[in-house]
């Protein structure tokens, strides 16, 4: 087995030396070009522009003086790091993520395993039923939950009048509930499709060895869908740091959601001033934090997988 692999990889390494030129160059370029152009236009260019904007400061004379944009180095970044509310919101999102992401992915995994097991009847129905909330736009979901949780309009007044689910203490978890409701089905589907890709022979072998359903789920299914779980976790970390629509909607239901409740809301509010330079700097910092967090998570899980 080992020798075979090395042989194959060795021959792969040798091939380019034998044939110096890549064939079909033009075809490859033509096929990659649409992606390349769109990627540059809608991804690299905006990022480059945001970075450029974040390095400028405005100068003007008098109360209504004309604004001139001049190079200001890291001035805007200094303002970002002094912005207490922004870092508070970052902390709030970390807390949110530490609780919400494991709960959501735990539920998604559980539902996926149930759908995949032979125990459940009506598999198709449940697969659709769990996925339907994802088809509801986030804003609509937030409005619906906002009404369900508000003290006087909720159909569950006995609960909402006594427990202030939109108050300063609990509103973060009410938002977490909306996000979970929307995204459990989506994550479940990713994990479920990865479960379907596991070859039946492995189950057969496990059954011959005497493993029951629980044992198969724990020792075979979960380790094999690990990559899918890691991927959904990375998506969720990114989604958490970029939370915008749900808290924005909850602002009108709850007095506890301020205009800089999440990092993205701060960007939004700053852009509305309009102070595009500062908003750009905040976006860049947010992107870097997101990048660092998701990559450290990937590194962490990879190292764990190796050990």
């Amino acid at each position, binding site marked *: 087995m080992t020798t075979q692999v090395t042989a194959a990889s060795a021959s792969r390494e040798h091939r380019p030396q034998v044939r110096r030129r890549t064939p079909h160059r033009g075809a490859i370029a033509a096929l990659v070009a649409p992606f390349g152009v769109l990627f540059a236009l809608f991804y*690299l260019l905006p990022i480059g522009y945001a970075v450029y904007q974040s390095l400028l400061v405005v100068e003007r004379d008098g109360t209504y003086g*004309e604004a001139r944009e001049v190079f200001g180095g890291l001035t805007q970044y200094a303002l970002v790091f002094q912005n207490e509310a922004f870092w508070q919101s970052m902390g709030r999102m970390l807390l949110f993520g530490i609780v919400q992401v494991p709960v959501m992915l735990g539920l998604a995994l559980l539902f996926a395993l149930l759908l995949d097991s032979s125990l459940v009847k009506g598999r198709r129905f449940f697969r659709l039923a769990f996925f339907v909330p994802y088809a509801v736009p986030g804003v609509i979901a937030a409005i619906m939950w906002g009404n369900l949780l508000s003290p006087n309009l909720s159909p569950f007044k006995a609960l909402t009048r006594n427990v202030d689910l939109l108050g300063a203490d609990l509103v973060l978890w009410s938002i977490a509930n909306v996000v979970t409701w929307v995204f459990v089905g989506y994550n479940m589907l990713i994990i479920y499709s990865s479960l379907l890709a596991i070859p039946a022979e492995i189950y057969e072998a496990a059954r011959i060895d005497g493993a029951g359903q629980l044992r198969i789920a724990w020792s075979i299914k979960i380790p094999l869908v690990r990559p899918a779980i890691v991927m959904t976790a990375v998506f969720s970390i990114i989604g958490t740091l970029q939370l915008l629509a749900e808290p924005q909607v909850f602002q009108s239901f709850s*007095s506890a959601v301020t205009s800089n409740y999440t990092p993205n809301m701060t960007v939004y509010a700053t852009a*509305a001033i309009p102070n595009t330079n500062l908003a750009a700097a905040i976006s860049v910092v947010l992107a870097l934090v997101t990048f660092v967090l998701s990559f450290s998570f990937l590194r962490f899980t990879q190292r764990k997988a190796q050990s």
Partner: protein
Amino acid sequence: MKHITTVALTALVSSLTLAACSSGAGSTEAAPECAPADGPVTLEFTTWIPGIEDVVAIWNDANPDIQVEVQTGPNGNGGTYQNFFNQIEAGNAPDLGQIEYDAIPNFRVQGGLVDLSGCEEVMAAKDDFVDWTWSQVTLGSEGVYGIPQDSGPMALFYRKDLFEKAGIEVPTTWDEYRAAAEKVRAEGGYITNFSQTDINQFAGFVWQAGGQWFGNDGDAWSVELASDTSVDVADYWQGLLDDDLVATHPAWTDEWNNAYNSGEVWTWVSAVWGANSIASGAPDTAGSWAVAPAPQWNEGDEAAGNWGGSSTAVLTGSDHPYEAAKFALWLNTSEEALTALNAAANLYPATKAGLELPALKEGVDFYGGQAIYDVFADAAQQVVPDFTWGPTMTQTYSDVADGFKSAATGAGTLAEALESGQQKTIDALEAQSIPVAE
């Protein structure tokens, strides 16, 4: 890998060059030139007035050479201002835009408004407008940065039936209003709902009390959100909050409508356009409401605050300021347009003649047949002139609202919210090099 880096770098560099070319466009204020175009002109007009299409159609039928295309969007702070700022930066703003009085300094600071003082017809119309509305668009300068459209003089909406039944006198001063609030609370209701997010309503209270939030001496802005008058007004409302005399439902929600519709809340000190909000939000209470002058800070005073009101402004980048100004004048001064605007969206005119429109003399069924606009016509004349708005009102509103929300939930006070709003506003100005006097 190396290839990717080169590609990324090339893209980055080219984006920087592109960006460098585009920056600076649209940041200059046009010199006050106002010459008619040679041929037919098409103007773009962005606004959020419901039913505006029908009003513009009247103009388009009569003026084949100056055609106006209307786009409607969300209200200003709800997104349209953001669009305007982006369009101005990109150099493709509509010729005309609806801009509320409190946002005019913001747009002028960003270089977004065309000075119309070079247009003879505009200058000739000056005396047609209620004085304070004109000073809202001139900003104490020689320039004219918009044509006043409507105004929002404030008065007291109250549940006549409930007051009569409980034997409570209609309050004429804010002291009486508090006394009435205690009686209403004893009846199980709330005298009003204190909105934590309508900071412009609160500004209207400060305005009525003779306070200022901003000053501008030409060299620097002064920020006075936490001035004595402003804090006095805040302390008054804080007292009502502390003693549970006002409800604190989030404004403009179903919860809020429900509070008025169910009779939980008895009054609202609001602008003239609020007549519509009550009628649509609390339909079950038809016929039970009446309007009285707003409570006064000192007995016998006759001061009114203002909440809302817009102008029609010509935005930077317009090629046809002359035609745009001509249309804006027709829209906001002619009797046919004002009547149509009032019919379509209950707009309350900013012109002196407009206050006498036949449509504004009639009794309103929802208010038990009372000719409510008479009360507002008086208030319109009593609005304290020269209230100054700051250059970053969107930010000021949202920061003060954050503080008011905490105060309503018992963390902090309204006065503290003004203090922190003051500091955050100063920070926001300094971040954009807008001079502030400390």
